[in-house]
């Protein structure tokens, strides 16, 4: 479904929920800013539209009653992005709709909000170039696999290293031996100093 940015009206004044609406406004604005929608004008229009839809939903949908307005507002903006991106991305091979994450990635890859600041979520102002850029964006972190087997070959290290290796294994298994050896070295050093200073 396309968003129409024409004839937007803000939700009617309700003193009891004014603060909550204000929070929802701020939340949507922050989210749009995080989406790099840098145009104040575009942000204002989108916020108004989102809030109006949230208002409509609170009036007509009993399932959302009691839920915080900021949460509903963020849900709404994310639903709109998913829906909008669904119009412009080519259909997936498995027939499933694109997820929000995939859509966000496609927008990120073509720098949509920066290059076309007034087209974000607005299909009426969508340049063909933007639509094309969106649909052609894919990320491949690696080429197709071409699997090889790379396994170490057995290496004959020779008799001494094998013996030392097995001795080390036994040595490491008995830490008391290590301590004893350290003390032996110490006593040896003392003995040498005694001999040298005579």
């Amino acid at each position, binding site marked *: 479904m396309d968003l129409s940015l024409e004839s937007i009206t803000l939700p009617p004044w309700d003193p009891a929920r004014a603060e909550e609406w204000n929070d929802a406004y701020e*939340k949507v604005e922050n989210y749009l*800013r995080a989406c790099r929608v840098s145009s104040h004008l575009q942000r204002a229009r989108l916020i108004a539209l989102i809030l109006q839809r949230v208002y409509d939903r609170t009036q007509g949908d009993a399932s959302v009653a009691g839920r915080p307005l900021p949460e509903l507002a963020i849900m709404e903006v994310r639903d709109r992005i998913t829906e909008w991106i669904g119009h412009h991305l080519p259909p997936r091979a498995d027939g499933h709709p694109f997820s929000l*994450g995939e859509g966000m990635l496609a927008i990120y890859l073509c720098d949509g909000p920066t290059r076309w600041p007034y087209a974000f979520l607005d299909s009426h102002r969508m340049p063909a170039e933007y639509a094309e850029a969106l649909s052609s964006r894919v990320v*491949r*972190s690696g080429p197709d696999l071409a699997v*090889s087997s790379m396994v170490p070959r057995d290496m004959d*290290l020779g008799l001494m290293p094998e013996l030392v290796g097995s001795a080390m*294994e036994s040595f490491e298994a008995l830490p008391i031996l290590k301590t004893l050896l350290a003390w032996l070295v110490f006593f040896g050093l003392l003995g040498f100093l005694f001999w040298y200073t005579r």
Partner: protein
Amino acid sequence: MNEASETSIQIPIQAVSPARHSARRQVLFFSCVVFLTSVATWLMADILWRGGLTGLETAMLILFAPLFGMVALGFIQAVVGFVMLLRKRDTYEITATLPSGEPVVEQLPPTALLIPIYNEDVSRVYEGLRSMYLALANAGLAGCFDFFILSDSTDPNKWIEEEIGWIDLCKQLKGFGRIFYRKRHIPLNRKSGNISDFCRRWGKRYRYMVVLDADSLMEAKTLARMVQLMEANPQTGILQTAPQPIQAQTPLARMLQFAGYCYGPVFQAGLNYWQSNNGNFWGHNAIIRTAPFIEHCALPALPGSKRSRFMSHDYVEAALMRKANYEVWLAYTLGGSFENVPPTMIDCAKRDRRWCRGNFQHSWLLMARGLLPVNRLHLSLGILSYLCSPLWLIFMILGMMQFRREMLAPTTAFDADIGLSSYLDIGGGRLALYLFLATLVLLTLPKLLATLLVLADRKKRRDFGGALRTVFSFVTEHLFSALMAPILMLFTSLSVAFVLLGREITWGAQRRDAEGIDWPGILRAHTWHTALGLLSAEIAYRIHPAFFWWLLPVTLGLVFSIPLSAVLGHEPFGRLLNRIGLFRTPPETEPPLLVSHMEKNLEICRSQLPPPGWLQKHYGAAQVVIDPYINAAHVSLLHAKRKLSYPLTAYFQKLSERLMTQGPAALNRRELLALLRNADSMAAIHDRLWKMPDRQLPEWWKLAMRHYNLLTGRPRTPLYR
């Protein structure tokens, strides 16, 4: 990219069959080394043998032989290199087989450029990659090379930076499908494991792979020529270039850079003389034939219960390649191959500590069946180069003891005419002095010869800043090297002791660039050097005042190790030296386009405003959680996981809850990494955070979101925009 096997290249092969000649060269070369060493050892024996050898004297003599042997090896290598460079042609140089004409894209087979990284400066890595990519594109060769960033980073911030940087770089260069990013979640077997992982996944697609380091840079022409050389020499398994230092800022780095350009060629030419096709792999800035590497160079586990792997894999891989009958060459005249050098003495010591452990592990292979004798020699020389430090230390201690004994009981006629000295009519003392002076000559002459080569060539002289500056740089470098030598000796001796005691040495990321003076670090590292220097000077003076002066070259560096380390690592002082032209090198006189392009871009990267300290510490996690695009990119790059077991789901829920309620500081690095690796959790946390009313947001996230929202028009990334 086509399969490697499908590419057919017709390049006339110029036969190089140096096996017989290289054996002759090796015999000649090592005969000279043995000759010098044996004469010097004989003189030493003559000096010590004054009416028999005591235990102390015998120990000194035994130590002297290998220590002098290493000095002689360096000297002969430099002299041979000097002669080869004077002749301007080495018959057994791999670049002599280079096909004439410019490289043509259609003639080059698919080649992968691998950049293994581990918690590195992401901007430096990616800007280097950008410069190489653009250089290849400008040369019309981009189609032949694929770039692979192979990350083993364990720092969450670095990981996220790498991901964002990779996407940004690909966007800016239109490099998707040419520049790839792979993050291993378990960095098994460090760098060699990372390369093996690439080989197992994609190795078959590429006939060659160029292994780079995080700070490597290679010119397009060099890369193309390496591929051409490999094509022209089908028996060559590894072709190693000689990386030249760049971007030196501190006085120490500038000294190392000067040494690399001025003395390096002489030693490399000498090295190539004796090793020819039995060369070594230095771990980076080299091209490798992929198929034999996969087949023969998988590294076995080391003996012992820990089953650890080789830390310095390069020498072993070269040995295995030679064992499989493939040649390994050093293309020392190729040029266009660059790397950074450590900016401070502590960084040098850290790097040496890692290499020391790696080289000592090679002792397991010395008797391995099937290795060529020359590879055993390479491995032994690697071990000996580190073992020399503690051996010098012991030799000096024994020397002090011997001198003291002579002072206390001057019964033996040290200065009497006994043995050789009786024929020369000089006493033992004079003979000792001559041997000492001869050793000094052997240490100094190689550098002097290399400097003479520079002075003799007008262009080189100009590139080094003129004759006066070159001579002054040579003298200063020599002086500071002498002062640094005992400090580095103690650092290495300590590393050797750690290795022999089986103490673990962690694989810390290197500090690739200067960051000013780190006083606490310097004091921690050098206080014991100073204390030991003062103690040695005191003991020497007590033994005999003359001995104090003999020992001064050693004790002076140690006593002043703290100010020396600070001065040598001081970046503004390094810049001052650059301005006055001291340690000037060719890339500073005529900067290669590749390097200046990267430096310009890096300057812009570093001019970005960093986030405040409290956010900077967990900036990566904050970005993934807050930023809708980065969250989407991060989640999409994680592998789709099978359904998790209940305990794992519960574990991730617990971690998510802590991250949400207390901020990233509540998780340790391992927990944060685990959570960042779980796609479902990351998507859920992002969703939950944005849906939460601001008033209910935990304090850390409230601040982070406010800060992030202030900057989202231009959030900080590793690359400039």
